[in-house]
């Protein structure tokens, strides 16, 4: 086991400019820049969120994503088969997780399933089904990490379906991010992503096109009880 310093040293070989740049930065910072007055005391930047569920549903509409509120796992399964039936033929990639295994069993889709334990989603996958780490009410976002079926699971297929529970809702980005920090999620995952809607572009005449390189549809199946 290498020490941290030894690792750093090793990675630095062949990088002669490193120390030179750091030296230049430190030299520059010796110039004193007068600090302006301190920040106004605790201004409220964002509107406080009173009803996270309602806010999340509202934001989903704005983000062009579909949010289906379900009562229990049976209705969730029905919702899932409905979405899958609306898609063209092809493989469905599913995060290999007990909860999703149960859901798929209940939904019993008549199409090939590829579990994340069998490898990354194929180029031709029609849909991906994953869990989320959290749902963020403020921005109508889902937070995923590598643990949610990997990096490609939320972007490769034209349709991404997220199976989540109301208990996973957090009010805002600040809460979601500080939880990621506290739980050291980024040490156990090489990747995380806050996803707020289906992929889109407005690069041509600023006209919004839904469905660019990523999913055209982002569906959240939001279950009330676990």
């Amino acid at each position, binding site marked *: 086991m290498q020490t941290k310093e030894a690792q750093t040293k090793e990675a630095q070989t062949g990088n002669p400019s490193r120390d030179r740049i750091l030296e230049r930065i430190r030299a520059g910072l010796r110039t004193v820049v007068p600090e302006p007055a301190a920040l106004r005391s605790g201004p409220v930047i964002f509107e406080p969120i009173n009803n996270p569920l309602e806010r999340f549903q509202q934001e989903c509409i704005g983000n062009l994503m579909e949010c289906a509120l379900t009562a229990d796992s049976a209705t969730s399964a029905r919702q899932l088969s409905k979405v899958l039936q609306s898609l063209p033929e092809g493989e469905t990639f599913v995060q290999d997780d007990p909860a999703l295994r149960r859901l798929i069993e209940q939904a019993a889709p008549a199409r090939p399933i590829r579990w994340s334990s069998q490898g990354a989603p194929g180029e031709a996958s029609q849909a991906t089904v994953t869990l989320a780490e959290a749902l963020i009410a403020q921005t109508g976002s889902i937070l995923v990490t590598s643990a949610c079926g990997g990096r490609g699971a939320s972007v490769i297929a034209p349709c991404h379906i997220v199976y989540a529970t109301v208990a996973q809702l957090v009010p805002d980005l600040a809460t979601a991010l500080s939880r990621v920090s506290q739980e050291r999620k980024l040490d156990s995952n090489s990747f995380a992503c806050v996803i707020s809607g289906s992929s889109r*572009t407005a690069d041509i005449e600023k006209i919004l096109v839904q469905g660019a390189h990523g999913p055209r549809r982002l569906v959240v199946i939001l279950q009330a009880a676990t």
Partner: protein
Amino acid sequence: MSQTAAQRFLQDAAVKSADLMHREIIRRGMESYDVAHLKGRARIKDWEAAREKCQEIKREAINHLDRYLLQFEEKVIARGGHVFWAANSEEACTYVKNLATRLGVRTVVKSKSMVTEEIQLSPVLEKAGIKVWETDLGEFIVQLREEPPYHIVTPAMHLNRGQIAKLFREKLDPGIESDDPADLMAAARRILRQAFFAAEMGISGANFLVADAGVIAISTNEGNGRLCTSVPRIHVVVSGIEKVIPRLEDLAVLWPVLATSGTGQGITTYGTLIGGPRRPGEVDGAEEFHVVLVDNGRSQLLADAEQREVLHCIRCGACLNICPVFRHVGGHTYGTTYPGPIGSVLTPHLNGIKEFKHLSYASSLCGACSSVCPVKIDLAHHLLQNRRNATEAGATKESERLIFRVWRYAMLRPRMYALGGWLVRKALRIIYGLGLAGSILDPMRVWNRYRSPVPLPSESFRARWRKGLDAN
């Protein structure tokens, strides 16, 4: 090259501002941005407080740049990533090129990154026989046209759908009939999809380098940035050293503010965080993860007490969008990687004040840029400071210095000044009377060439002032 950058700027500005089609495209684009931007700002309860918070975060980061960069580096290396510090473009490009060659890379997919434009990475890779695909739709379009991005956020905003459809028919597929933006996107998607799955290396920029978490943060809408960083087996991040921020939680305000200022969205579709190569047990992700930290003149700005804050820029493009000069002359006229007010401030620092001091005058000093900047950079005053710096560095023309010497002489001698004013008024009256306004004989030609002359006052300001005083 016989033409200077300043001459080229004036010439291109004249051509572009007279190009009615260009003006119409930009006007429409900017109008829809304005609407979205204002709507987005209204979604934030206290926009001014949000700006102050962002300014504070960036100031904290830049004022301790060495510490935060080292913290970021340590984390990335601990996870098995590599961090390379490049003093200039050449070092950065050579590192990426050597890496690509060593690992047998033949195809590269790139997501939008202005730093890679700044260091001119793609031409270096292409010279080494590597195929480079720009995968952001706007970047893909300008790459096909073999021109630089027009705007730092929307690279192809100077083109309309007809021009893009024609380009796609010529370069991609003569069978493309529709010029509907959705169909054009679909055509690009089909082609780029193959590139994503063929490429061995993905290159991205970074909107932020998060020091405490040791991750890069990328904001994208199309998902191309996600594919570039998920599918190929090597991921290279190229970022300016100034992109660092102290804490992950800082993104809770920086992300919404960047999205609002960039496009008017509440938040960008994908806020991606990546801290290293694929970990054991993960389904996918790059096996190699490299971060290239580019200085390229940035560290010099730290010693500039007035302008250090220019390094706070988060490249949202809001100052370009609001700038009346940008709206008329367009992005390409600047002839720089970063156009608009931020580019006019930054370029003289990065590429030399002598060649680029003219950009400090590509401003009406209206201050609109300062008023929209989400990190509160006082761009309008930095333009003034650059004018002063250029003069102090003796970068001005001999003729200009002479004119100012004459003016100074007259200013110090009120009678002389009055006489001069009287003479000029007389002379102009004669010239205008002869119908020579705007002709080569008109000293006011620069103004009068394209405009009707401003009516000459019947008496001087001094005379009026004296009368006003007497009346009291």
